[in-house]
């Protein structure tokens, strides 16, 4: 159990300027590294009792200040206690055929701490890069003359992934009004199969369909979802390709044959993992 003396002396100064203090720790590993550095400990030989005590003191301060204790901090506290108890127990007899010393119970924690420190430093290195928009700037591209239309596209259509598609779908869903409760007439239900054949029919007559227009034609969510699922299914069985002209630009649906003919198959359209 943490002794009061250590608890108050360690974080006495911290309590006043506390808001600032807390933001410093990104998580339990960050806090542990801080304690190790503060006590000038050797990371390969951590006195678990000392560290655990200080760690718990810190959690106590967080509690006293009515802060939500993140579960991650509690998980680490129990890990520390488990390590300590394993250190106290006699070592089990090494099993037959399993040579070598049994691992120090602290080894895993040390590995994690070092690994974490490594990526934390790497993050700092990244933050020190000449960031675009912070340290360096580019000639802002003026959209006045930006070109419309697929054929004029500069670098050819962009690939887009499932995330883009789902995001676009969500945006559209938010456009349609919420279900109207007073409507009682039975609506005609559109199955995914129907939606698939409708898309394919339309693609026979048109060179391409526009994702947004296709979905917004649907008067309600159900139809919209049916169409969206139909698009995903068609993409999966490789009957259509989905391309986007620019970031956040319109998304187009092509029958897969024309795309290959037009683009010589170099634009690798959506593929779903």
């Amino acid at each position, binding site marked *: 159990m943490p002794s009061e003396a250590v608890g108050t002396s360690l974080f006495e100064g911290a309590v006043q300027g506390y808001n600032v203090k807390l933001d410093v720790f990104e998580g339990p*590993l960050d806090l542990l590294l801080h304690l190790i550095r503060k006590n000038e400990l050797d990371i390969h030989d951590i006195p678990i009792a000392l560290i655990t005590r200080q760690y718990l003191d810190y959690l106590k301060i967080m509690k006293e200040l009515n802060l939500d204790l993140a579960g991650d901090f509690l998980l*680490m506290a129990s890990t520390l206690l488990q390590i300590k108890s394993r250190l106290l127990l006699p070592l089990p007899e090494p099993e037959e055929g399993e040579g070598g010393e049994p691992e120090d119970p602290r080894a895993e924690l040390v590995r994690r701490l070092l690994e974490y420190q490594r990526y*934390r430093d790497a993050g700092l*290195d990244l933050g020190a890069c000449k960031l675009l928009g912070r340290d*360096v700037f580019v000639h802002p591209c003026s959209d006045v003359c930006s070109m419309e239309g697929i054929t004029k596209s500069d*670098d050819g259509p962009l690939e887009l992934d499932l995330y883009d598609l789902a995001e676009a779908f969500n945006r559209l869903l938010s456009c349609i009004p919420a279900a109207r409760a007073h409507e009682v007439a039975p609506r005609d239900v559109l199955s995914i199969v129907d939606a698939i054949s409708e898309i394919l029919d339309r693609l026979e007559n048109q060179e391409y369909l526009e994702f947004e227009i296709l979905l917004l034609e649907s008067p309600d969510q159900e139809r919209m979802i049916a169409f969206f699922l139909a698009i995903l299914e068609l993409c999966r069985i490789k009957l259509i390709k989905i391309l986007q002209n620019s970031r956040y630009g319109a998304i187009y649906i092509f029958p897969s044959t024309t795309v290959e003919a037009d683009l010589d198959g170099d634009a690798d359209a959506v593929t779903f993992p």
Partner: protein
Amino acid sequence: MQSPSLKATVEGLLFVSDGPTSLDRLAELLPEYDRAAIRISLQELRDGYEERGSGFTLVEVAGGWQLRSRPELTPYLSRMFKGRPVRFTQSALETLAIVAYRQPVTRQEIEYLRGVDTGAVLKSLLEKRLIKILGKKEIPGRPLIYGTTREFLEVFNLKDIKGLPTLREIQSLDEIPVYEVQEELPLVI
């Protein structure tokens, strides 16, 4: 009128381009010139800007070439972009670093390394298009795997993913294959 030099042509293309332009792309736009000559003119342009202390430089970034302002001008130029400074929190940088060095990587692996929940950070990085979903990992649960994007290279001024600053070595730590460590990963939902 004299026909413009290759150097001027390349400079003009870079000036109007709205992102890093690759050598391939330049060669494609200028079929009348030799690819090697285009490469030389890029280097000449870059050296030229350096020599005359120009307000911008030509940098190799995200697999292409781009005109960017000279870093020394930041204090002045940033006055122009006051309202929207680009800032990253420590957690965002940590997460980005893990994704960048360890890609393809799952959320569970990131959280194991960081020791904290990373869902919100990943979401915001996805929205900023600094990372993307690469697919699903063929292990139970089929978790999503993440990697960095071209925008990440652009924003962090990196030529390619190999241009990342090298990870500082861990002193005297036995080389443990990382995936072995992750096998023991406790399931955190």
